[in-house]
Structure formats: C-alpha cells, structure tokens
C-alpha cells in the first residue's frame, strides 16, 4: 500500500483562507457550511476542475492532474449525459481507453448499477428518471472506472429513505474495506454526515474548522453550526 495519504491538500486558497489537510486511508471527510460558504468550490478544486496556484492537491502522493482517472466525482447536479441511457452513462469512465464495451466491462457496469440499487434502470433514458434515480446513476458512474478516491457533492440529496440507507451503507463499506481509499463529501445533511464521516471540515466566513467526529460535540463552532442548521 502506498505510504502517501489518499488525499493531501496544502496551501489551497479558498476565499482568503488557506486550507491544509490530509485524508488518511479509511477516512471520510464531510465538508459542512452554510450556503455560499465554498463547499462546492472546494470540491471543484479537489476534483481537478479548478487549478489555482499557489497550493497543491495530491492523490496518493501524485499531482491531482495525473491521478484524475482514480478520482470519482458526484456533482451537485447529477450531470448525466442526455440522449444516453443510464447504462451508457455509467459505462462512460470505461470508455476512456477505447470506445466500445466488451462483455466483462458490461458486467462491471451492471454490478455497479446493482450496488447503488438502480439495476432496473439499465435501459432507461436519463431524462425519464426521477431526481433520486439520477443521483444514484451519478454515484454509480463515479464508482466506475478506476476510482480510488470519491469526491461527492450532496451524495444522498433527493434520495428516498430506503435508498439513502443503502447508499450510506455502501459508501461506508467501500471505504472501510479499502475499495475506496478515502472520501470527501459536501453535505447539508448533518445526521448523514454524523453517521458516516470520520472528520468534519466546517467552512465559515474566511476561516475553517477541522475536527474529528468524536471532538465535534466539544467544538464551539461546530455546535453553533449544528444548532443553527437544525
């Protein structure tokens, strides 16, 4: 196993604040904050969509831009490609090294669909799906290809309770078993964050607070945020 952490952020400038943190193997970091606090912007940096010097984002010791194939991303909008079926959308990461899917790859796609509970949507055009189903397909796509690190913006938003529990269990077990080396997620759902995350990164104004889940109850800023949100 690589000694370098799954994700290492050094000197990343976010709204005048410098962020430095690592996500160690088996850790899930929940990014919390009010609307407009910069959660989605931070995730855009971590998923390689924005590159702003100074600062660096490294994945298992490598520059993020050279490791993008191993970073799965769930966007704020599901971002499913129109005119394609759910199956074709989930297959997209497998198409990077060739534009056709052989039988083995098709099975991999079906497995991911089953894992997130959308196996029955294989031939559905994405515009016919409900928001919750779109979110599941988007998650299945993020877990396709060679994903080792997951960056997810509101991964369980719009999901029905049963589906939410399934996804929650799946994500926790993927990280716990090492299939995913780590995960960073932005969420407004504090209950979900509290159940699944190992660390919280609270963005507030021009500063931030990084705490372990066990310490959150004793942190004033976290408590104030929780009180305000709930």
């Amino acid at each position, binding site marked *: 196993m690589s000694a370098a952490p799954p994700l290492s952020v050094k000197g990343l400038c976010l709204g005048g604040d410098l962020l430095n943190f690592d996500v160690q193997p088996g850790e899930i970091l929940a990014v919390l904050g009010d609307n407009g606090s910069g959660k989605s912007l931070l995730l855009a940096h971590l998923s390689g969509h924005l590159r702003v010097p100074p600062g660096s984002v490294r994945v298992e010791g490598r520059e993020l831009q050279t490791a993008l194939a191993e970073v799965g991303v769930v966007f704020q909008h*599901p971002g499913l490609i129109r005119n394609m079926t759910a199956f074709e959308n989930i297959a997209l990461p497998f198409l990077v090294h060739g534009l056709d899917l052989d039988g083995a790859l098709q099975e991999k796609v079906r497995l991911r669909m089953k894992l997130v509970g959308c196996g029955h949507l294989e031939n559905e055009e994405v515009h016919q799906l409900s928001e919750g189903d779109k979110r599941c397909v988007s998650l299945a796509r993020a877990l396709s290809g060679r994903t080792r690190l997951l960056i997810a913006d509101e991964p369980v938003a719009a999901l029905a309770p049963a589906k939410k529990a399934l996804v929650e269990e799946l994500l926790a077990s993927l990280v716990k078993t090492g299939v995913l080396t780590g995960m960073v997620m932005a969420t407004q759902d504090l209950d979900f964050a509290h159940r699944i995350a190992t660390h919280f990164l609270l963005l507030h104004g021009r500063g931030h607070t990084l705490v372990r889940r066990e310490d959150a109850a004793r942190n004033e800023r976290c408590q104030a945020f929780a009180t305000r949100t709930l």
Partner: protein
Amino acid sequence: MNAKASTAMTFERTTRYSIASLLGAIIVAVVRFLPRVLTGRATVVDRETARQVLGFLSGTAPASALTTFIYGLAAAYGVIGNAGSAEAFQTLVLPRLGGAFVQFVIPFAIANLVVLKGVVGLTSDIASMRVSQEIDALEAVGLNPADMVFAPRAIALILTAPALAVIGVYAACLGAWLVSWIAVGAGFTEFISAYASSVTSGALLLTVTKLAITATAMSIIAGFFGFMGAKAESGFVGKITTSAVATAVFSSTIVNLLLTLLTAAFNLE
C-alpha cells in the same frame, strides 16, 4: 467562485476548446466515423453521430424544401416580370435559371437555415450541458467533450447541409415551374429539361462544397460559444446563443464572400 478560480478555468477552457481543437475534433471524428460504421463496429459516439445526423436532417429537410420552394417562386416571378415576353423567358432566361439558383439562391437559403437551426441547436445544447454539469462530468471521467458532444453535432451539420442543398435545388425548381406554368403556361417536362440543362454537376459540386465549408465554420463558431460563452454556468444560455448566432450570420457572409472570390479567382464557376 472567486476571480482567480474563474480566470484559471477560462484559461483551461480556452486551450481545450480553441478553434484549432474543435476543428481537430471534427477531422478525427470524420476519419474514424465512416470506417467504423461501414465495418459494423459503431461505438457510442458513432451511434450518437448517426442519431444527430438523422435528427438534424428530419428536422430541417421540410423547412429547407419549403424555403427554397418559396425562393424559387419569388425568383421566377421576378425574372418572368422582367423578361418582357413568354418567348424571351423560355429562350433566354429559363436555360440559365437552374444554374443561377444553384450558384446563388440555394447556398444563401441553406446557409441561413444552417445558421438558424444548426448554430442555435449546437450552441444551446452545449451551453445547457454546462449548466447541468454534463460537460464537467465528461471531463471528470477523462473524456473530451469536444469528441463526445461537439463532434457528433458538428458532423451532423456538415453532412446535412450539402444534402439540404440537393433537396433545395429540386424544391426551388418546383417553385419556379409553378410560377412559370401560371404565368406563361410552361409545360412541366420542358421546364425541367431546360432547368436541368443549366445545372451542371460541377456547379452542384461547388455549391455542396461551399455549404460543407460554411457548415464547418458555423459549427466551430457554435461550439466555441457553447464551450466558452461566459456565464453559462449561471444559466445565461439564451444570451450565449444570441451572441453565437450574431457572429455566425456575419461569419457566414464573410465565408461565402471569400469562397465566391476564390472560385472566381480560380475560374471554377
């Protein structure tokens, strides 16, 4: 999003979706598309390309036929009125009518349609895909949106424009015949025969080539605005599309002028 982030993003998009990159994506897609389809090894992108070609053709062919039919009516009405007599029209004007249509009327009419339907469709498609983060999603999985989204639509435009020109030649002929029949009693067979005699295969090939080049330029303009238009992520799709159409109308005139000058300079007409 802060100013620095926005600048960095613009820089990356500028290089990835430059005019040269978009032209390269079209060339690569054309080179790969036909062999793969002909050998029965069509991929997801090829199927999307075929779907776009059929969609664009079926959506534009009726409008193209009707527009050029009306152009034919109007042009024939104008020349019959100025010909002086039925004999003068049939002996002097009619043998040149088809050639004039193919050379001047059809490229103008079809270029307008390509600009209106093609550029609007392509630009708004891509810009709205930025709003819904479809473009981000493709980039995130390591696929190039210029190959996956732009090229199939651009190829549809480029293949369809010449096909529409051929439809336009016959529709304009019908329109011109209808006016001639009402005004000077021109028989259908004689009219078609005289009209067709002035439509040389060289002139038709030239028009088809002109339209393919115009459609290529239009699709690149549409793609550039779709990918690069400012504030697409904020939902300004209509504004970006309007800018693309304004630029495309102007560019279409310039491209046509340049092609006309070139064909005249090399005596291709």
